């Protein structure tokens, strides 16, 4: 078997995080979450339904763009993914501006559905392809969606994990803090500490992120890779060498 690629490790981390879900929804331009969802779908006979936003061929919605939000409101969506221009140590995400809101230094597209879905989907997986002190900060400049809420605010879900190219953090809702769960092969705790702008919990021994089991890897490199090639040709070419 070829050596395991970093993307395959990340896909496998996400696969484990979505185990047991009934319906996984994936936003636009999220090849790693999409691959993980397809993998989960293929692995179990009762694998999750998978809906890719904005891909009519790969989603189960027929009531317009509102159906993602409605079905999340109904409690039918178990997993969703978000990123953030900034993510802070309390799980807040910023998709709007850097700097003062009235006079921003940088403007991003906007909050999308985060200010709602972050509350309503039980398992939100944060995914950030740049692990740096610029992106993982102590406190976001603007809270597009808060990581936690006071007990009187209706909230069905929120972040459960943050996955980056370096590591896998889990999120402790009660403490409103991340904990370093594992460090991916080829990286170290020190590297994570050096590149993370927020304080986080960790046990004395942080395990390495496990390699994907061989059967999972076979499935990923076979039928899942083929499916991905139709939707994310660039990604499938780079990671799975499928063209």
């Amino acid at each position: 078997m070829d050596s395991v690629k970093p993307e395959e490790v990340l896909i496998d981390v996400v696969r484990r995080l979505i185990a047991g879900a009934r319906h996984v929804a994936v936003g636009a331009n999220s090849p790693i979450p999409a691959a993980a969802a397809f993998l989960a779908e293929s692995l179990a006979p009762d694998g999750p339904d998978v809906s890719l936003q904005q891909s009519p061929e790969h989603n189960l919605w027929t009531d317009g763009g509102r159906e993602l939000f409605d079905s999340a409101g109904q409690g039918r969506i178990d997993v969703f993914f978000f990123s953030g221009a900034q993510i802070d140590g309390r799980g807040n995400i910023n998709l709007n501006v850097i700097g003062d809101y009235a006079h921003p230094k940088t403007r991003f597209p906007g909050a999308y559905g985060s200010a709602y879905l972050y509350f309503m989907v039980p398992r939100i997986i944060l995914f950030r392809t740049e692990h740096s002190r610029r992106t993982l900060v102590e406190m976001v400049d603007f809270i597009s969606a808060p990581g936690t809420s006071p007990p009187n605010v209706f909230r069905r879900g929120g972040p459960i994990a943050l996955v980056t190219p370096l590591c896998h953090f889990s999120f402790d809702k009660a403490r409103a803090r991340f904990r370093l769960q594992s460090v991916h092969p080829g990286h170290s705790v020190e590297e994570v500490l050096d590149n993370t702008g927020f304080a986080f919990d960790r046990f004395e021994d942080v395990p390495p992120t496990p390699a994907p089991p061989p059967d999972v890897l076979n499935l990923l490199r076979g039928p899942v890779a083929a499916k991905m090639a139709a939707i994310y040709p660039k990604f499938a070419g780079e990671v799975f060498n499928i063209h």
Partner: protein
Amino acid sequence: MSKIRPLDAALAAISDGQMLAVPADYAGVAMEATRALIRRGIRQLHLVTLPAASLQADLLIGAGCVATVETSAIGFGELGSAPRFTGAVIDGTIALKDATCPAIHQALRAAEMGNPFGVLRGIIGSDLLKQRPDWKVIDNPFATDDPIVLLPAIRPDVALFHAPLADRLGNVWVGRQRDLFTLAHAAIRSIATVERVQDGNLLDDEAMAGATIPAFYLEAVALAPRGAWPLRLSGHYPDDVPHLVGYLELAATEAGFRRYLDDHVFYRGAA
């Protein structure tokens, strides 16, 4: 008068200062109509995107057609951010009503139902709420100590969108793109461009009627083949990615953006 009209005539109902609501890229964006509006020199629009937008909003903003925009996001996905929108927000040349996707859905659905406000979970604790004094938090009267957000209804003057098919009566078939129903119901009047106009009555066809917006919501319908270009029409043609990449390169500067307008909107480029 027939509702099927030439594009410029169909757009006559859109005037300066109006609230114009448009769908997201996946639902059918009336790009040919947008270019016609820019050529006409429309001004001071209050643009509402259901819920996000890309090229359409960026062009209208860059061309100086927009006073206010309400949106949950304007960007080009993995291709990059929207340069004219980003610049206008940083320079403060447009008023921005920053929202989140379901808030725009619920505010338009409130108008669809004839209600003065919509209801939405979440949001509390988001800084969006600080920027939206028009959104109100009340105590859910059916529970104890349960704050919840109410959003004022959005009742656009005009909704503008692109769809695969209309009949000569002005019934418009939209397939899965149910957001277009929301827009047509919420807006005072709607204008559609379509790939194709056919004879007969879509409402008489049991297989089609369920996904057809009845003509009585439509002010006018214009034929515009490939009318979403360079954006996609789901099930018909994909995004023209090279064109969009080229746009983003040009629109990084004001001068480049003007050149794009000359070439692709005003048709007074190299010719």
